[in-house]
């Protein structure tokens, strides 16, 4: 009889432990979740040409006669593009252009130095450009202002460009060129 009692105590303990474990297992599932639902909308970096004109509306700038003609317009469907056509240009003909680029995005941006056919211009200095690749510069371009200005959404930057034709330009010839102006997000300018 005594031997029987000694044997049942551990068994009861085991049963209790198992029971507690079961209860404990049940309690280990009590929890609370704090859910954070995230939604990120990125901004838009965009620019549009809103103004583009030249100072030759008749009499050639600096002269007394209307010899060359200059026409400027902005692409109505895509304001990332503007166009200029100059007719009957001649050596020493010089024309000044003005452009406003508006920040049509939601992120401030900086305007970088314009490039002509991939050649970076220099602020307030003429840069000779060989437009037809014959080894002789046909015109020189000067970029004025516009750089290092932070433009906020809705604002615009105004900058100017001068084109001066050189004596080495060919007569009765058609030159084409592309000017590119890049703007980059405001916090990436060194």
């Amino acid at each position, binding site marked *: 009889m005594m031997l029987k009692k000694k044997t049942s105590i551990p068994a009861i303990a085991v049963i209790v432990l198992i029971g507690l474990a079961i209860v404990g297992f049940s309690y280990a599932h009590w929890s609370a979740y704090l859910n954070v639902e995230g939604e990120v909308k990125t901004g838009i*970096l*965009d*620019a*549009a*040409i809103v103004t*583009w004109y030249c100072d030759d509306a008749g009499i050639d700038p600096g*002269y007394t*006669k209307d*010899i*060359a003609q200059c026409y400027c317009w902005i692409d109505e469907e895509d*304001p*990332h*593009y*503007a*166009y*200029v*056509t*100059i*007719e*009957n*240009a*001649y*050596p*020493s*003909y010089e024309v000044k252009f003005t*452009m406003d*680029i508006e920040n049509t*995005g939601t*992120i401030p*941006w900086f305007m970088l130095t314009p490039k002509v056919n991939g050649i970076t211009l220099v602020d307030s200095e003429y840069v000779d450009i060989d*437009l037809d690749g014959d080894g002789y510069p046909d*015109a020189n371009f000067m970029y004025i202002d516009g750089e290092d200005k932070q433009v906020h959404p809705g604002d615009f930057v105004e900058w100017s460009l001068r*084109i001066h*034709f050189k*004596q080495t*330009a*060919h*007569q*009765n*010839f*058609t*030159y*084409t*060129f*592309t*000017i*590119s*102006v*890049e*703007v*980059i*997000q405001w916090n*990436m300018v060194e």
Partner: protein
Amino acid sequence: MNTKKLAATFAILMMALGIAGFAYAHWSETVYIQGEVTTGYVDLEWSFDYILRQDKDVAYLEYYIEDGYLEVGLYNVYPCLTVELWIDIHNTGTIPVKLYDYDCGITENSTDLTPWIEIVCEEFYGVDGNGDNIVGSCEQLDPCDSVYYHVIIHFMQDDGQGNVMPEGASMGFCAWFEWVNWNAEIPA
């Protein structure tokens, strides 16, 4: 290649990409201006005409004109002969021009009869594209405009110093004109 080298190469590659990624990781937008320029041209045409005032076909004139060069030969001339010359220069280009340089002289192998030549009348006048006279200076010649040189010369028997005009002489003279675009700087 052992494992360490592979790991080092991989690490360097990752760093390089990281740096490049940092540099390129900006948003940008580009606007473009497409330009087209057509240049004008300077071009002139000129013509020459003449009259020998004589009752008989004795003296005669021959001329050669090409580009900016004019050569005139007067043959079998004699005292009291009067010759009228017209030179018409027409701007056929698209740019106004101005006279940059010119010269004239006696051609080779000819007798200089200028001491016996008297310029009776020399006119210089301009006409615009509508045929109206150009008021003021003809220093600049606009496209479609023309200038005319009208010269009347008279061969004299005596050069004023008692020298009689040589017989059997023929005289040739030439002239050339260089025109440049109107706004070119001409050295003083």
